[in-house]
């Protein structure tokens, strides 16, 4: 089995994720897109570990899954607080950091 099929799939997922991060206005959807990116990376790790017959990639993937879970937890927490304070989660409205 060739690795490149996995890599294509991963690249596709990655692109969808990047598109989502850039184009979406909804903070929750942006978070979901970040998940897609992470999973694309995971897929790469696993695919290469599979091809090279080592365990390192699998280990990394497991770590990433764990950290992604934590990241989503924190991200959703932030979104929730933002929503409570401003009754909106549209990213365009969050531009206080404008220089």
């Amino acid at each position, binding site marked *: 089995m060739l690795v490149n099929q996995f890599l294509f799939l991963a690249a596709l997922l990655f692109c969808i994720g990047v598109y989502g991060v*850039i184009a979406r*206005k909804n903070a929750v959807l942006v978070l979901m897109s970040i998940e897609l990116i992470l999973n694309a990376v995971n897929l790469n790790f696993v695919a290469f570990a599979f091809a090279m017959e080592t365990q390192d990639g699998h280990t990394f993937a497991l770590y990433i899954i764990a950290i992604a879970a934590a990241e989503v937890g924190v991200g959703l927490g932030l979104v929730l607080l933002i929503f409570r304070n401003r009754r909106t989660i549209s990213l365009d409205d969050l*531009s206080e950091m404008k*220089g």
Partner: protein
Amino acid sequence: MIRSAEALQTLSSGWFLEHAWLIPIVPAIGFFIIILFGKKLPMKGSEIGLLSMLSSLVLAGGTAMQWIDRVNSGAEAQFIAPVVRTWNWWQIGGMKFTIGQSIDGLAVIVLVVVAFISTLVQLYSTEYLKGDRRYTHFFAALTLFSAGMLAMVVAEDTILFLLGWEIMGLCSFMLIGHWWEDGANSRAALKAFFTVRTGDMGLLVGVAMLYFASNEWTTEHLGVSGFSIRGISAWALSGEPNSTVILVASVALFIAAIGKSGQFPLHTWLPDAMAGPTPVSSLLHSSTMVVAGVFLVSRLYPVFFTGFDILGSGGNFITIIGGITIVIAAALAFVQNDIKKVLAYSTVSQLGYMMLGLGAGAWLPAVFHIFTHAFFKACLFLGAGSISHSASHHSFDMKKDMGGLRKVMPITFTTWVISTLALCGVFPFSGFFSKDEIIDNVGHNGYQLFMIIGLIGAFMTAAYMTRATYLTFFGEARGASAGEHHDEHHDAHAPAHDDHDSHDVHDAHATDHADHGPHESGWRITLPLVLLAVLALSSGLLNATPFGEKWERIKTWVEPRAEVVMETAPGGPGHSNVLSIPAAAEEGHHDSPCGSETPEEGVCYAPQLQHAPFKWSKAMLSLGIVFLGIALSWLFSTLLYTRKDKRLVGLTERNGVLRAGYNLLINKYYLDALYENVIVRAIAGPIAAAAYWFNQNVLDGILHAVARASRAFSGWVYRNIDQRVVDGTVNNSGKATKGAGGVLAPVQSGKVSQYGALLFSAAAVAALVLVIINS
């Protein structure tokens, strides 16, 4: 590599031997069940404790049976290899930690004793602690305690050994402080814990030292790590180790044994540990906790054997400590009024015998003494508990609340007397066969002075036990046992029972109980007593040296036959593919500790020890001494306590020398005062003050000087370097940044999507650059 195959037999094994690791696992699981679900169970978790100990006992019994088969399947002089199973526990770098079981004669005999006594104590506790407010927790701790001891006994390696050892330390703290509402009890628990911990440091140091010293040798010769007890034993006897290293390691390990087994000068925790419930005292002082130290020495015996050069000297650290302990503890037992404290000091003294035996090369008698002592001492403690439970209204004071109990408590009295005679070492009770052998072998191995100490100890044992028996069971009934009603408890052990309802509930099954009057205890108390008394009477016959070789069963089953063992192949861990050949039958070669010339590849696991031939003349001497002790003490007790002879009453107040001696004893040689007032206060008081002074004056002085110098220097630095060079740079870079910021400000739109787009495009550019560079 097998050189004389015809002398070898294949050793039999069996399911129980292979699965002996289940013995500690079962009570450990029991502990978790009790602690998690105990309170919801119909008998509050005690049934789980009892059941798990009973299963352990069955497993241990099966193991013992199969071990005996295994011994019988071996040839006459064949080394009976232990049944070893190991598992990898964890691995870090090059160090591999295994965990496993190693079942040999020593492990089997202690397993059986521990499981048996634990079962009886649990049965006893169901009655003794009925209605206690922490009934479930008590059984949980008791079960875990036994699990710890059993784990330590089956341990193949020093790591598991340490684990079991520490579990016991923790559980003893929980059990001694079971009634912690009373400050004295929690203080006793703390004292026990910290005193034992003082010694435990030695175990940690010793184990680490042995690992680093022996690891290379054991890996090369046996394929096991330096934590394996077999490996360490073989290494210690190989003639390889540096004598200083092994001496320091054995001293460190022995310090651990001193702490755990209550040897002088760390024995002070043991009598205070009487603050715990009586079943706990019984378990702690007969077969578990305190035996752990003795077990440590007998388990790693080759290390001590080589370290202290046991057969080559007339006195060493172990024998000196053991000898001192025998005498001072026995002397302390004379001035105690608390029946449990008499027994506690008696335990300390008996442990001294075991240590003395081990130190003087009497390995088997010492191990056999563990065996017999467990039965009669457990019986005595449970007997004391029975008295306080049913007769003296939770008091343990012999002078105030006991006396004349032999008529009201016939079963307790009979079992007590049997155990007392066993403890004193009267023929044919079990103590005679073990204690007399220790004394005999100590003399035989060239430790004459210590043999005399042993005989003095036997005299004192007989005397103080007679005194205790007299005060408890004979003479006039006094205090609570005379039926006096106490509204107020005058004893530290009572608080947990201060709800009288519970007392009445468990008195209900007694046939004719007057209001708190003395009566015999219920069957759950007397059954263990009777079983233990039967064993106290008969267990000595398992190794009855006086009757000839055929009676020396324990010797056949337990003592390792210390022959030269050949290594067939460096077996991996978990495979004990060590075969043995009998020693070349050449006389007079005692170059190696194995008792015969060791071939270069040969490995031996146990030192060759000799046994003193039994002589009735010597036995008569020690029996005579014991009877003299009993008779003198009886006479003295009758005169002093019953007839109130004027010459004796108040003698300690009138005679200056005796008063000084009495004060010394009643103050426990001022050791507690030394520890608490001098050492602890020295650390808390002057040393802390000195440290504070040093801190304030010396350290702060240095700091102040440094600070002044720094201030002067920093002033110069501020004026020249800081203001001109650094600030100049900073100001200029600030200006530059401000300019750049003005240019770049529009990029900071505050829109997250834009940032994301920038980030990803930057990443894409970087990736492109990477690809171009690498191609």
